[in-house]
């Protein structure tokens, strides 16, 4: 019985931490208009497709192994504002001045659908907020302003923003997130060329099988497999116990 107070003491900080985390997640996201991002060894393209079909693209560099979708947007220099929805994370309400004003987020008629592309694969709709979205080198983040009704269409295909080997040495210290945006009115389904620090590094995305969901790696989904085995095992055990209770009432 002496261990119980220790366990109780351990529970209180955990609950306090959870309460503080919940409060922190309710804080509104302020409008962000960052400057150009610093150079980095990893890169991820950003594609923004407006309702009128105009496309803006950026290539964002980062040094860490991964970057959140929100941080990538901040470093891209594209102006945006958003709102945090509890555990969902930050949602984009206005991006690159569309809509110019909004009374509700997400909007009644249109909203910014968020997509993610893993390793140059096809766009997948992200069902989590951009603050919860994690992107690695070669992944891409896409936004498209779509009508509220119906399945949202994906934006133009993401390009690949990688540096040629010859330019790699000159890359350090250069300004990333260089503007590689397409002029307004681009209607093609391929994104314009992407580059970093003015280096014209253009390559189309290789054709790869799409991932099952945003955030998942390619190949066998270990989480899904574990959940299936655990669920079937627990359900089978519960049925066996129910059967035993019926056959041999206690």
């Amino acid at each position, binding site marked *: 019985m002496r261990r119980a107070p220790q366990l109780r003491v351990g529970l209180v900080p955990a609950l306090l931490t959870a309460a503080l*985390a919940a409060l922190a997640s309710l804080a509104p996201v302020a409008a962000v208009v960052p400057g150009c991002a610093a150079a980095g060894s990893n890169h991820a393209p950003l594609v923004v497709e407006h309702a009128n079909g105009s496309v803006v693209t950026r290539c964002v560099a980062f040094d860490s192994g991964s970057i959140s979708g929100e941080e990538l947007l901040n470093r891209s220099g594209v102006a945006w504002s958003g709102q945090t929805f509890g555990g969902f994370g930050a949602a984009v309400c206005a991006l690159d001045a569309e809509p110019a004003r909004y009374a509700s987020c997400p909007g009644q008629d249109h909203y910014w659908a968020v997509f993610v592309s893993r390793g140059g694969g096809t766009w997948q709709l992200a069902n*989590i907020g951009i603050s919860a979205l*994690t992107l690695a080198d070669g992944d891409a983040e896409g936004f498209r302003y779509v009508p509220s009704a119906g399945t949202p269409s994906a934006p133009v295909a993401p390009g690949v923003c990688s540096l040629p080997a010859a330019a790699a040495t000159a890359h350090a210290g250069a300004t990333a997130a260089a503007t590689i945006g397409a002029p307004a009115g681009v209607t093609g389904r391929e994104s314009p060329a992407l580059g970093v620090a003015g280096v014209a590094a253009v390559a189309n995305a290789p054709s790869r099988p799409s991932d099952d969901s945003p955030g998942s790696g390619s190949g066998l989904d270990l989480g899904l497999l574990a959940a299936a085995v655990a669920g079937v095992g627990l359900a089978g055990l519960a049925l066996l116990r129910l059967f035993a209770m019926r056959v041999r009432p206690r």
Partner: protein
Amino acid sequence: MSSQPGLAPRAWLAWSLAAVTVALSTTNPIYRGLVALAALNVLLTWLPPGRRVRPLALAVVLAAAFAALVNVLASHTGADVIVRLPSDWPLVGGPLTVESLAFGGALGLGLVAALLAVAPLSLVLEPHDVVDAMPGALERTGIAVATSLNLVGGLGRTFTAVRDAQRMRGWRPRGIRSGNEVLVPVVLTAIEDSVLLAEAMEARGFGAGRRTSYARSSWGKWESAVVAGALGSAVLFIVIRLLGAPVDWYPYPTLAWPPIHPALVAGCLALALPAFVPRRPSGRPTPGGAD
């Protein structure tokens, strides 16, 4: 003494708190479903003879169905429309979508998991076990709550007895006013019972000092394992959320498969540990002093 040769009441309380925390800390239906299945296994393992699980199952199913229904009627977000109700209908007017139905189902599953997680506190433990499990600071509050809950059951029994007695005297229910002939005696009896209970508790020294127990509940390695597993599971969910990994699931705007983290699946499985705890040989409890 505990009525069941099983886990110590404090282990049950810690397990229930952790399971409820996990169930309500995520909107992911996979994790919620796993917590519900783990709690169901634990409940079926330790359900004492004579206790029925059917009323709980009925309540759980009704609560889940109600949550799903309310969400699908009140939330009109989502891309895939099932049916479109006239927009001039208050609250429910507008498109009813597959996505809102799915999210309502996830909400219902959360309720199911939470109810099954706290069910052992009422179905496996006796009220005095729950009071014993309370931390010292909450002991008197726990007694007050347990006593109040006991009075609810007593109120139902009194209502049945008074109603039957009035019927034998020729009373028949005729509208709301005739209900007074049953309700007034029931309320008076409840007040009288409360006064009697308070006098009985005072006669037994309630409030004079710390509560004592006939038997000291033993704390062994299984209790430690169950509490460590349950609290570890709750902490794992909180830490992974703080690290920024997706723990929640939202089906809007279009339905998508929830993200699943293998470590969180393992955390849910840890909650099923009480279902594998061997029963201690039953016997007379060890007499002990103040607990």
